């Protein structure tokens, strides 16, 4: 370690070394790791700021598990064995995020493959650009667009009723269809590019060899392309899963009125509930479960973390 520092300072000189060390230290430690630790710590504390601010730092300011208990079992006089609302919202969030991820893989894999191996020159460029352009537009505006499309008097209902397919407009928002479509839409780019990067580096000769040996197209994909693109697919899945589980704007705007997203509950504890420690406990739970889930998936598919984000 000491030796490394010596080499590092010798190579970069004093000023640059200090710049690099200091800035990365501030970024990783002060801006990222310490806040996470503080949030973790805070989630085990009583909500003294609201109850009695003078007790902060006093003898009563001890650790407690009450917020995690609340997430699982609800308030002490809750007759049910579990905190049914919060736990079911949590399960709904995770499950939906999984389905959104699967939907995106299925949707994006053909396009990524097309981009990498079928489309040529100018077409590829144009497609790339038109992939990126929608994602420069604000997430909220995209959600708004979906609200226009899927509202009860929205364009899709109008068209379907006009064509006589529906006799009565469907409330897509209430049925959460708008939310699922919107979430799938929001993270397309994050799925396509990792898969594209992985598929693109595949040697075309491998595909041709498989074809010459008489393999039908679906088997080529199943046996040659997909195994090769696995790191890209997994990294796309990880990002889409984490981001859709942690989405806030889309559920707020196009989520059904009767179903919540877990981040909305966190938001409520911070804003209207004024219970920051409980909100942090919920946030920590979300983070931990998501990370465990992702690590599990990586273990199953045997992909290393370092391969993500390339």
């Amino acid at each position: 370690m000491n030796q490394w520092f010596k080499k590092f300072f010798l190579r970069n000189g004093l000023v640059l070394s200090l710049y690099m060390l200091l800035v990365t230290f501030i970024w990783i430690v002060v801006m990222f790791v310490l806040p996470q630790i503080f949030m973790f710590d805070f989630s085990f504390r009583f909500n003294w700021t609201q109850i009695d601010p003078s007790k902060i730092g006093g003898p009563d300011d001890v650790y407690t598990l009450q917020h995690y208990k609340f997430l699982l079992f609800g308030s002490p006089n809750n007759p049910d064995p579990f905190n049914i609302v919060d736990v079911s919202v949590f399960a709904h969030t995770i499950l939906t995020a999984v389905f959104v991820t699967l939907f995106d893989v299925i949707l994006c894999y053909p396009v990524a493959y097309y981009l990498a191996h079928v489309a040529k020159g100018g077409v590829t460029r144009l497609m790339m650009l038109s992939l990126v352009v929608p994602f420069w537009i604000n997430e909220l505006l995209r959600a708004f667009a979906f609200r226009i499309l899927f509202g009860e008097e929205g364009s899709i209902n109008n068209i379907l009723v006009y064509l006589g397919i529906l006799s009565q407009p469907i409330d897509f928002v209430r049925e959460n269809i708008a939310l699922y479509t919107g979430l799938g839409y929001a993270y397309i780019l994050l799925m396509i590019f990792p898969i594209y990067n992985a598929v693109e580096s595949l040697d075309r000769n491998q595909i041709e060899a498989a074809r010459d040996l008489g393999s039908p197209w679906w088997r080529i994909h199943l046996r040659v392309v997909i195994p090769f693109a696995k790191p890209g697919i997994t990294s796309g899945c990880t990002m889409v899963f984490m981001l859709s589980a942690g989405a806030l704007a889309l559920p707020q705007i196009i989520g059904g009125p009767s179903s919540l997203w877990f981040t909305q509950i966190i938001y409520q504890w911070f804003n209207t509930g004024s219970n920051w420690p409980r909100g942090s406990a919920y946030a920590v739970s979300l983070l931990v479960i998501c990370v465990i889930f992702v690590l599990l998936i990586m273990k199953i598919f045997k992909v290393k973390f370092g391969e993500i984000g390339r």
Partner: protein
Amino acid sequence: MSSSTFLRFTINFYIFLFFAYLFGPLIVMSITAFNSASFPRLSPWDCFSTEWFGVLVNDARMMSGFKNSFIIGIAVVFVSVPIGLAGALMLGQLSNRVRPVFYTLTISTILVPGVVLGISTLIFWDRMGMIFNTEYESFFYDGIFLTIIGQSTFISAYTMLVFISRLQRFDSVLEEAALDLGATNIQYFRKILLPFLKPAIGSAAVLAFLASFENYNTTVFTIVSESTLTTVLASKVRYGINPSISALAVIIIGLTLTAAFIHEVLKRREHARENELEKEGKTLKVKTYSKTFRNPVSVMVLLIFVAGLGTAWMARGYNVQQCKIEAFAEKRKMQEELSKKRLAEMQKKLESQKAASATSSTTKAKKSAPGTDQYGSIFAPTNLGGQVESDEKKMETPETPKNQYQSIFAPTNLEAQVESKKQKKETPEAPKNQYQSIFAPSNLEGQVESQE
């Protein structure tokens, strides 16, 4: 052979559907910005109008949010670009054992949900403020400062990825050569490395600004009592929507397309220059010029521009107010027909309740429209009960039509309408209110007819 044609057709159709999914919502949203109806929609189309752009510009909250977003975006660029650069340089020099850990940590900042980042930043600085015992006005509690820090945490990782991909193409021989020739470390950094990284710095800055500008999840927690464009937008979209948001979208989409176009042109020019260096002596000026027009993107932008000009020309000498009045009259006619139809259907069913509800609705009509003249009895406010929501907002526009229709459009007429609409919205499980307000007028008419 035919099966392969079929396959090809399927694939192309799939790609088409995919891009329709990608662009459909944005196109629909952009079109709704030009519909004068107060609810963003494609059909029924009322009138072509650009009034929503005016509404947008005059929205003080939106504009102050925009200002804050802009300030935060610039600050985030200045924080996250140096951090990303340091991170990328650092990554290249770490030992093989430490590098994966460092990389995992930096990438985690992207993967951790933005909500969690916002919360942890908020709590951390709140506690810091407590530890240092600072005043509430200090920057520890300042929404803009917290947002800059919170956003930079993960945006730095984006910029780092940009720098990493550029540094991969860096020839390390250059470094050795410079140092061998007696350059100091700082000279090497300033004269060799930074010029090489210049394009990456540019794209990292743009990326950082855009990511900051459109961020919501982190911002909504860290912004505390201030507001940014996204938080204003979110509250607007949640509590009642109108097409001024579509107008904002049109502006942003326009800017994005322009930026994409410029980016494409610059890239082509750079490409051409590289070609020029390779094939010396060949004149490439004509070639690049014609290439610009062969570029599909430029054709697309040109088409959009022409379409915009076309609509502007169509809009010339076109009276929005006149159109609105016509649309309103037409709607009223349709409404009357509809209510007559309904009357025929409902008359038998309502036989017994008719008397009671009719009297109640007449008193209601008298109460809510005291200022109506002789037309009042015909166009009683309750006549409009079932009218579409949009008509209410239309009347609120500053230039209320001043003509013979005035009494019909009197704001008092609309109160009843708005009320009934609101009741409908708020209590969907209480059909009684709805029932009364919709069918009451037709009952009334039925009575008149039967008396005649």
